[in-house]
């Protein structure tokens, strides 16, 4: 062969093949997608943080007044002379209502999910699955109004008080996050390999022992993720909670006295404030607190998950 043909052949052999180029292209666009999401997350976090922190830097509110104060009325001062930007009632309200709702929802959700996957998979798939998916779509507004017309009178008649309060909020949130937790738990249970169950049964374990000691244990990370997502939804839920919790920026005195959450105060107050004013900045600080609290919940659950799960 002549020198020229040699060179052409060599360059053809040294170029990346079409498949390799496709591979690099594919890897690049999936990386780009991930980076886009990261960009969005970072920009929202930076935005909320910058607006939230300006309460402390621009408007000179002390951290103590914000986190330990119990009166919320930004723009005015409390009887003792401090600026009334106490977020403690809302923080406690959010905490209580999320924890209680998750506590009530988790056993129901896991029970249902186990029923759907282990005990009656056929009935589960045909019947329960579409119903659960349907419930995720009911808008918060509708839940809120059903809460207002059904849950609040119920709580009022059975537990006393005006019916508005943390208990009503818990009931409404419990129904709202139930489908989310069930769905994701079902996915987690389904991804436990079949041979785990088969091995357990072959060893003579009963169905319940298999479920309790093998399936649930190995699906624990997935179940914990489901609970985190459920709590995240409960946390960030504004419209429905707002209508049944009463929105009184008071320290919650009981489960049936009007209280407020970070989200309910944020939603109802945002439209009446002007960008850049103290009232507005204070609301963004509430949003920042929401961010931090969800981060805390997140880390907590992952910590628990690492301790309790099977090592694969």
């Amino acid at each position: 062969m002549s020198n020229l043909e040699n060179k052409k052949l060599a360059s053809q052999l040294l170029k990346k093949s079409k498949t390799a180029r496709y591979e690099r292209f594919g890897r690049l666009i999936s990386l780009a997608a991930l980076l886009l999401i990261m960009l969005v997350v970072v920009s929202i976090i930076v935005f909320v943080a910058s607006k939230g922190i300006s309460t402390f830097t621009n408007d000179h509110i002390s951290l103590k007044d914000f986190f330990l104060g119990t009166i919320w009325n930004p723009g005015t001062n409390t009887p003792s002379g401090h600026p009334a930007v106490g977020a403690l009632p809302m923080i406690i309200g959010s905490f209580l209502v999320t924890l209680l709702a998750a506590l009530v929802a988790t056993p129901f959700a896991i029970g249902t999910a186990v029923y759907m996957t282990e005990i009656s998979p056929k009935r589960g798939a045909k019947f329960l699955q579409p119903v659960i998916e349907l419930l995720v779509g009911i808008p918060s507004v509708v839940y809120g109004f059903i809460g207002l017309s059904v849950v609040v009178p119920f709580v009022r008649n059975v537990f006393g008080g005006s019916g508005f309060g943390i208990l009503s909020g818990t009931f409404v949130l419990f129904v709202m996050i139930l489908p989310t937790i069930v769905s994701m738990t079902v996915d987690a249970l389904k991804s436990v390999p079949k041979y785990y169950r088969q091995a357990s049964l072959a060893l003579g374990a009963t169905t319940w022992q298999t479920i309790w000691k093998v399936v649930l244990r190995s699906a624990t990370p997935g179940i914990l993720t489901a609970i985190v997502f459920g709590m995240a939804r409960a946390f960030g839920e504004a419209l429905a909670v707002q209508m049944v919790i009463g929105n009184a920026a008071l320290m919650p005195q009981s489960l049936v006295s009007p209280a407020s959450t970070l989200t309910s105060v944020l939603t109802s107050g945002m439209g009446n404030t002007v960008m850049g004013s103290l009232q507005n900045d204070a609301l963004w600080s509430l949003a920042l607190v929401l961010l931090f609290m969800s981060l805390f919940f997140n880390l907590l659950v992952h910590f628990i998950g690492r301790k309790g799960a099977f090592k694969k």
Partner: protein
Amino acid sequence: MKTQSQSRFAIGVLKGIAVCVVLILAFLLGYIFITGLPNVSWGFLTKPAKAFQAGGGVGIQLFNSFYLLILAMLISTPIALGAAIYLNEYAKDNWFTSTIRTMIEILSSLPSVVVGLFGFLLFVVQFNYGFSILSGALTLTIFNLPLLTRSMEDSLASVSDDQRQGGLGLGLSKFETITHIVVPAALPGIISGMILSSGRIFGEAAALIYTAGQSAPALNFGDWNPFNIDSPLSPLRPAETLAVHIWKINSEGIMPDLTQVSSGASAVLVLAILIFNLSARYFGRKIFEKMTSAK
């Protein structure tokens, strides 16, 4: 045997729990449909809304809901899929990756109002799209991405490694294995994730109040040119969706038949989601069978 009776007892309790849940769900759906369906008629479904007289319908809002849903899913699905592929197949298992995953989970717990306000300040004001379908779809995308990415990641992870090794063994590149083998095998999980997030988008109100707007100008259904402002397809027009409409008439409505319109709209919303879910499941199954030659 003690363990057998324990097992039977436990199973009985589980059955009871499932029945409880079904009862709660049945009550909710029953309440919505019984109070709402009597108000739904063909006229209700197609007429535009009236501000202060009786007899308004939800035709335009219904169309807007679907249009926004389709647009938001079109934008978010490729992005979520790409990110899930990278996270699951390519990313190394170090602290950086887990930080990324944590940040995505944090995004999912932000109240929808915050995302809506962010969308308002970014798309409506800064980019000057105004109250429009575009702003709404982009905000919904942001809102939807964490849930979608997470569920896609989980379904990709549940595909056993044997499949991937088979593909590599046949000489396919990694990306080719992913697109031709892993993704089709994970399709049921991906579709159920898409349905879950579609349901949530369809019922979302808080994020759209400040971005897609609360007004639904009359549309000219004969004009399908996307560049005209009164065409249904135009992405720059304000578009009140069904969920936002329910919220609005319950907060600020003064029309005399407002409870009827509200309960009718809720029933239509739930019904639409049901139909959407069932048909999406059906098509998902069909596609899965075709791609993996299961039948």
